[in-house]
């Protein structure tokens, strides 16, 4: 059974003149990481809001079709139930920090506190996550005095502690430097190994190429293409439609145009190196 299922879903924000999602049908399976790409205003964040239930529970507007989470219609889920089922990590880590807690440790524990989890269990689970994400040096700090990268790691911790099966992650690295980006992707990789179901919106297609099981391309509120990272991210025509593909894929295309051997278009650095070295040998 599909874990998350969208059946002919259309959605229009209140007062908007266009549909943010337009007749979207797709099934997400349990335990996979879905990379969601596309030009801005293509419907990526709306999909995130929908799967987490912010639409229709928070955003009004017009929703047509069906969104099923574990077989149950999103309209029938209570919002508090969804909040224990699905974790959401916002694009802007500044939106995630509550602002009401004075230490990082309390901030991470806030979700469990809200659920009324037993104090000993709450502390134990928080300590576990702190260790797991190596946040020991930050726990006594004020969450408002952290750098962007630190905030994003704390935001992840405050969601991971809830132990959701489904995680919706919307552009987690857009404000981060390259080394903090790498740290965040290490966390995402660990979550993937735990067989979490992850919907990840990300402009950095090099990272989607490394980590995603499936890639969905959103365009004008619709799923324009979907498939394996190798199939989707090697397609040069996406560039003409305003969607990036990895620079190594473009390299592959340019080498082919110059009649240099290239069995398949690489999408990761290691694939590119392998192809280049193999190409050299084949010419031999």
């Amino acid at each position, binding site marked *: 059974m599909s874990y998350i299922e969208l059946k002919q879903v259309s959605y229009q924000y209140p007062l908007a003149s266009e549909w943010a999602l337009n007749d979207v049908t797709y099934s997400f399976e349990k335990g996979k990481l879905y990379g969601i790409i596309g*030009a*801005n205003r293509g419907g990526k964040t709306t999909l995130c809001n929908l799967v987490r239930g912010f639409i229709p529970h928070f955003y009004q507007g017009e929703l047509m079709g069906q969104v099923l989470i574990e077989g149950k219609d999103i309209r029938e889920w209570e919002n508090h139930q969804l909040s224990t089922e699905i974790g959401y990590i916002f694009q802007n880590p500044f939106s995630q920090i509550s602002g009401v807690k004075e230490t990082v440790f309390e901030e991470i524990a806030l979700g469990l506190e809200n659920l009324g989890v037993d104090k000993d269990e709450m502390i134990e689970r928080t300590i576990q996550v702190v260790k797991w994400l190596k946040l020991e040096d930050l726990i006594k700090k004020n969450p408002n005095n952290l750098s962007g990268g630190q905030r994003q790691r704390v935001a992840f911790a405050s969601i991971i502690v809830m132990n959701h099966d489904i995680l919706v992650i919307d552009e987690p690295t857009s404000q981060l430097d390259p080394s903090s980006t790498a740290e965040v992707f290490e966390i995402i990789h660990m979550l993937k190994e735990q067989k979490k179901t992850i919907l990840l919106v990300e402009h950095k297609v090099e990272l989607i190429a490394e980590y995603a099981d499936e890639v969905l391309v959103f365009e004008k509120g619709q799923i324009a293409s979907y498939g394996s990272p190798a199939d989707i991210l090697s397609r040069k025509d996406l560039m003409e439609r305003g*969607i990036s593909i990895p620079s190594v894929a473009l390299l592959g295309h340019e080498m082919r145009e110059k009649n240099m051997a290239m069995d398949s278009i690489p999408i990761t650095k290691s694939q590119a190196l392998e192809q280049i070295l193999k190409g050299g040998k084949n010419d031999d």
Partner: protein
Amino acid sequence: MIELKDVTFAYPNGYIANENLNLVINNGERVAIIGQNGAGKTTAVKLMNRLNKPTTGDVIVDGNNTKERTTAQISAYVGYVFQNPDEQIFNSTVAMEVEYMLKYRKLDQKDIDRRRDRAVELTGIQDYLKMNPLDVPYSLRKFITIAVVLAMETPYIILDEPTAGQDLQGLKTLSNMMDALQDEGRSVITITHDMEFVADHFTRVVAMANKQIIADDTADNIFWNAEVIKEARIKEPQIGEIAKELGLKGNIIHRRDLVDALSHQKKAFIRGGSNEKE
């Protein structure tokens, strides 16, 4: 010309955010500033428009020492676009936001119209003029705040992380805009974490780490300097990584150069025969 001479900056609580900065930015120059979060990049550029005053040392903007001028006076020379657009936006429509400072300065309507239209054209926000800026998606909100600053027509423009959250079209708009500004002889100073964007659109790159400038060089030299990469905690573009792993020379960071190098290598290989037959 903007000159930073032996500048150190400490916050009132004594925390030193910039140490011993020396930097010259010429008219019509395009410079990228890179380095990890917390390296002191934003603090450094705020010295240029006098949002920060040096604790020691001097900042000279077209002959004006910022210590002897007001922030309003320096703002006629240096425009600064904040990292977070929401810190800058306060009007109820995009058009009003772009025109606000022009009206405040009591420019005549014809001049206001001309400047607004040019700024709007360069940033591609034509379709949003009647909207409330806060209803516009983040990536476009950033372009609204850029338009506000462009309309001031200052000789120096500082963009603080304009690439964050931008898609391919947004990055294209940015690069076209920087080309146009440079053609007009204006300088653009850009803080960014997008190393592919730096490699593709900048020749001069300033790398910062631990409050200091650790390198001021061409993009290819920066991305082939292992020490700078390590210290500034940056990551070279993938093309550069591949060239390094293949042992190619020439500080390659662009695709076309890598393709050329591989193609030359192949020709030389074929001409010379191979000693590596298995």
